[in-house]
């Protein structure tokens, strides 16, 4: 994801965010780090859920999600003085979160090239996807739904990074094109192109696999 700053048309940022970010920045500039930290906790509490949700969609594994979220807020705190006013804080934060998740995925895939898959005692290959705890469906429906979900997830993961990010933000996070363009630092036209290509590709793959 590029670091370009665009999208002045992002929906109005909450005033609380704007004022908090400005105050933290000034505190950091003055060297009052402890007070800046206290102020920052409020921002963390406000956006933590959304960032965790995005990280969970990327990473699945809860330990990885926790670490990615921690890294995101830590990086944001470190680089807050360089944050530009025209990019809303949440868009900037989501951008950092997505990059952290992608870095983690890449690092994991690099490691997995050199490591044997972990086999549990029942002989099945262990995956990172945790099993949902409760279900209202009967076992057969549950199994079918699970299979379909797995297949769809596999297909979505085959998409290029940017298309995946756009699809995730638009479909799962219900973000508008304006928001996505602010998050990804690209123009709205580019976001539309990515959305379009992602959907077209998925359509094609699904047709090929006779769904």
């Amino acid at each position, binding site marked *: 994801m590029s670091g370009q700053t665009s999208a002045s048309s992002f929906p109005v940022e909450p005033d609380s965010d704007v004022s908090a970010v400005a105050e933290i920045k000034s505190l950091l500039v003055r060297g009052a*780090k*402890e007070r*800046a*930290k206290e102020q*920052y*906790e409020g921002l*963390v*509490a406000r956006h*933590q*859920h959304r960032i*965790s*949700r995005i990280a*969970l*969609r990327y990473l699945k594994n*809860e330990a990885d999600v*926790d670490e990615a*979220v*921690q890294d995101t*807020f*830590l990086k944001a*705190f*470190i680089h807050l003085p360089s944050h530009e006013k025209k990019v809303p804080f949440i868009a900037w934060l989501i951008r950092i979160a997505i990059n952290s998740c992608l870095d983690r995925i890449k690092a994991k895939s690099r490691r997995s090239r050199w490591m044997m898959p972990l086999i549990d005692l029942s002989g099945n290959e262990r995956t990172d*996807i*945790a099993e*949902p*705890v*409760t*279900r209202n469906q009967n076992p057969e429906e549950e199994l079918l*739904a699970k299979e*379909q*979900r797995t297949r*769809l*997830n596999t297909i*979505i993961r085959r998409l290029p990074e940017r298309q995946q990010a756009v*699809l995730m933000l*638009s*479909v*799962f996070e219900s973000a*508008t*094109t*304006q928001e996505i363009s602010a998050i990804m630092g690209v123009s709205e036209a580019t976001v*539309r192109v990515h*959305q*379009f290509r992602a*959907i*077209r590709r*998925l*359509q094609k793959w*699904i047709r090929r696999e006779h769904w």
Partner: protein
Amino acid sequence: MWFKNSQHLNDTTLTQAYLESRNGNPWSQSTTDHLITCEDCAKKYARLTTLVHAIKLAEEPDLLARITSERLSRQRQRIMHRIGIMVGSELPASILRFPAFFTQTTTSRFNNHRWLAASMVAAGLFLGVIGGQLFDLAQISNLGSIPFVQDTTKNILILEPDQASQTNNTYDQIDIMTFSEIEIALEASSETELYTLDIMTPRVYEIAINAQ
């Protein structure tokens, strides 16, 4: 704007129309009119919306339930702790802490000149090698100054007795001379030359007597 041909809306147009509607933007009048009148395009559009819904289904149903308030508060604590470490208000978690007098043993002065020890060792080795070479050279040159006399009966060179006592490495030179004598004897056809060697060789019975 949406038409590539006047017959049907193509996939590109339909996808764009879907995205526009998702973003809350109105369709153009022509697209709306066409979708109302053309059954095929309406079906294609319905398939597209179904696909996007299917993508939504790819999400695990309990995904969001996994983000509990407890988990978030734990996570927040960790974030603030890490920021605290960075800011300097909190100490990093340490498993082991050494007593102060141990930690002071590593002086920065030594660490700053770590290369010094290595270079001193290297210099020592260099000097050792050079010294050894010079010592060998000195021995060779000394050898040239040793006075020899010609033994006319045996046609060999022997060390002059008086001079031999004056040399520093007399025993070495005697060894050299003895071995040269043996070498000459071995090269000669006469066996009498080997008597010296034979006398020096211990016999079995001699050893037996000594043992008794």
